[in-house]
């Protein structure tokens, strides 16, 4: 079993028995896609909601373009798109007191919304999410089961 590490603005796919993880999500979102029959999954760690307006930049950085790219990688590994289910974690609002109206600080919510929107557009069911709040998250996707473990500082662990 290997642990596959997904960095910031990065995405990776892997198969059973690997664990795919990304560390310290704040307002970024972690989106996982998983095929239960083939036990193959993927994860993206995205910083910003939409690629539109940022053409030419790294696609892994944006929620919508990263999800599309991750699906392509999974398809190359033999996963049909209609076998995939998704989970989302992260999208926190780390500094809540400073300028409630500041768009940048509310980026977490916008990242989550962009994730929900692109999954709906691609008809991929979103089966679980753990988003919002004002705390960081480390997430681990177990490709054997599709379970997504979420670790926090001071708020314990859970599996979605």
């Amino acid at each position, binding site marked *: 079993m290997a642990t596959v590490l997904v*960095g*910031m*603005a*990065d995405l990776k796919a892997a198969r059973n028995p690997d664990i795919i993880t990304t*560390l*310290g*999500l*704040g*307002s*970024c979102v972690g989106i996982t896609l998983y095929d239960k029959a083939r036990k193959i999954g993927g994860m993206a760690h995205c*910083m*910003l909601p939409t690629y539109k307006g*940022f053409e*030419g*930049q*790294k696609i892994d*950085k944006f929620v919508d373009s990263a999800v599309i790219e991750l699906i392509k990688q999974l398809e190359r590994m033999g996963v049909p798109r209609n076998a995939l289910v998704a989970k989302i974690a992260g999208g*926190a609002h*780390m*500094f*809540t*007191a*400073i*300028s409630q109206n*500041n768009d*940048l*600080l509310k*980026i977490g919510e916008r990242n989550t919304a962009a994730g929900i929107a692109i999954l709906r557009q691609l008809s991929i069911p979103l089966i679980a999410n753990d988003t919002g709040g*004002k*705390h*960081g*998250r*480390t997430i681990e996707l177990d490709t054997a089961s599709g379970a997504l473990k979420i670790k926090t*500082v*001071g708020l314990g662990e859970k599996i979605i």
Partner: protein
Amino acid sequence: MNDSLNNNLSKHLDVFKEIGNIGAGHAASALAGLLDRRITMSVPIASVVPFNEIVNVLDGPETLVAGVLIDVSGDLNGFILLLLSMKDAMAMVSQALCQPERDTEDSEFVLTDLEQDTLVEIANILVGSFLSAITTFSGLSAIPSVPQLAVDMLGAIISIATIQYGTIGESVLFLNTRFNDLAGDINGHFFLIPDYNSYKMLLEALGLEG
């Protein structure tokens, strides 16, 4: 514009190092006044670091850190983030409060309300004097907000800086300053997070093209 910003950041690294030097120099004097002891300061290291490497330059994305964020408005708009390891945060707070340092490695460790307020106040003084140095030599206004503290994973806290830079490139500008007193080193990491226009304005005010 995106590539040019990254190129510009690298090209003007010495300028930002000097901004950091002047800013942190003021901050160190303010800290010395607050803690009532001699504080020396290293010349800041200014670097442009890709997103993926920034957490490794520090202690790894899951490390517990104290981050204080200050919103800046005026001619210059953006944020300043001061990041301290828990150990360094504890060292500063215990010196300011004249209390013994507690063990931050303890799994039960949390900052008390008083310690949190003290840390926010220290950050306020550090960032306030840092900003006043920048405004003095650039002639641009920059008004700090009340600071806010968050204690959480490094990756989560730093995302505020990476996301702002993320709209304009693939790297973040990073200033690392070491404060030193008789008891040892305290590492303070400053992240200047100007919006794109402020960044250009700052360079222009210094007589460089944006």
